[in-house]
């Protein structure tokens, strides 16, 4: 039995993939929303191993680092692959999504005005890798790794959704990814979550840019 609490700022940011996964699992969780003044006060920061949020609490267990949180939750619920090679490919995709997220976050927080257009122009260089990898798994008609949904799918779905906000056309040359987003978003629990006020009212990023 798990009782998850996500401790984070009021953003989608590095937690929305975890929220998507929990929602799709039908696993309830609580949110402890941290305001910026609270964060700057410093006590919570000292509790965090690397001085950062998010923090996940599961009973007495505390965990930092968003991708560690994703992996922990995934493993608890059988979403980290069924055999070693699958687990490894899931890790590989999660890391590839992370690489993309780092670039996205840098543009959003450090260089939105001037960096947005060149960033969007360069996007196909990243998206093509996912399109290609997806095409090799069941013709791209299922999940990103293996034949059941995994942590990698929630990460990839999340990063694609935030990029569709940034650049609504960005998947026009990537038909498999576009269909993949539609397909995963249509899963009943995912659909309910994406249409929820909690999700819709939560800003993508902390500086209002998206």
């Amino acid at each position, binding site marked *: 039995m798990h009782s998850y609490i996500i401790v984070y700022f009021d953003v989608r940011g590095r937690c929305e993939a975890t929220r998507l996964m929990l929602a799709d699992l039908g696993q309830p969780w609580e949110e402890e929303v941290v305001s910026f003044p609270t964060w700057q006060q410093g006590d919570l920061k000292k509790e965090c191993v690397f001085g950062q949020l998010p923090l996940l609490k599961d009973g007495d267990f505390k965990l930092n680092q968003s991708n560690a949180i994703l992996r922990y939750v995934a*493993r608890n619920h059988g979403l980290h692959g069924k055999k070693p090679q699958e687990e490894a490919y899931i890790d590989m995709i999660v890391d590839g999504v992370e690489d993309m997220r780092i670039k996205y976050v840098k543009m959003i927080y450090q260089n939105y005005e001037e960096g947005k257009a060149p960033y969007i122009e360069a996007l196909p260089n990243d998206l093509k890798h996912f399109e290609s990898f997806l095409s090799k798994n069941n013709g791209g008609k299922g999940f990103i790794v293996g034949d059941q949904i995994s942590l990698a799918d929630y990460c990839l779905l999340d990063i694609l959704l935030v990029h569709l906000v940034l650049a609504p056309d960005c998947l026009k040359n990537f038909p498999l990814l576009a269909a993949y987003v539609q397909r995963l978003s249509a899963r009943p629990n995912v659909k309910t979550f994406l249409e929820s006020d909690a999700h819709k009212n939560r800003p993508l990023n902390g500086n209002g840019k998206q």
Partner: protein
Amino acid sequence: TLFRSDRLIQRAAGHSHPQFHTPHSAARTSGTSQDTMAAQYTITYFPVRGRTEYIRYLLADQGCEWKDDVMPIKEWYEGKVEQKKEAVFGQLPKFTDGDFVLFQSNAILRYLGRKHGLYGKNEKEAALIDMVNDGVEDLRLKYSRVFFYEWETSKDTYIEALPNHLRPFERLVSQNPSGFLMGSNVSFSDYNFLDLLQNHVVFAPDCLKDFPHLQAFKDKMESRPKLKAYLESEAHKNRPIHPTRKV
């Protein structure tokens, strides 16, 4: 491009390091994942330590053999090699275990971590090891940016800020009776962190002076017999940290 090298680095076809595998280790196994000693591991990477030396530390320490497939930097970044198009994210390292091909250095670490019992003794320990490895990765990213791209401009500010980045790791080790980063036994994150600490000590020899637990960690790791033998090997010593700069 990531690296500029004026020296043409000859691609060494099927280069094997003599100390760590026999020339006959090309024989295929049946691919059973339990048979770790007969596993056919290959690392494809540039002729630098970069994101692979800590994978080699893990393998050496676990008594595994592997083959090093050296990719010349210039050829790779000119985009001419087929392998770049085949690489899932267009990047190295590439790792193979028999027929199985894997990319992303941390995915490789985790794969080997699972295979060789270096991933903690339960789910919570595994999660904490993931957490600390991600922290190591965050520092590695900061270090790499400065070390490979902004050395002249940012070296001094980086060294000045370094204690703030090392402090969380000092705290982690100080809280762990085993002396490893996390958990009661060595984990994949320890090899990653050792390599990162060593790289820092090279250009900031005093950086551990206020961090006795990190110094003890480094000493402890470096004295593990098989790892020590590898650290003293020509293969390791001849593999540079930077492709052109003498650090």
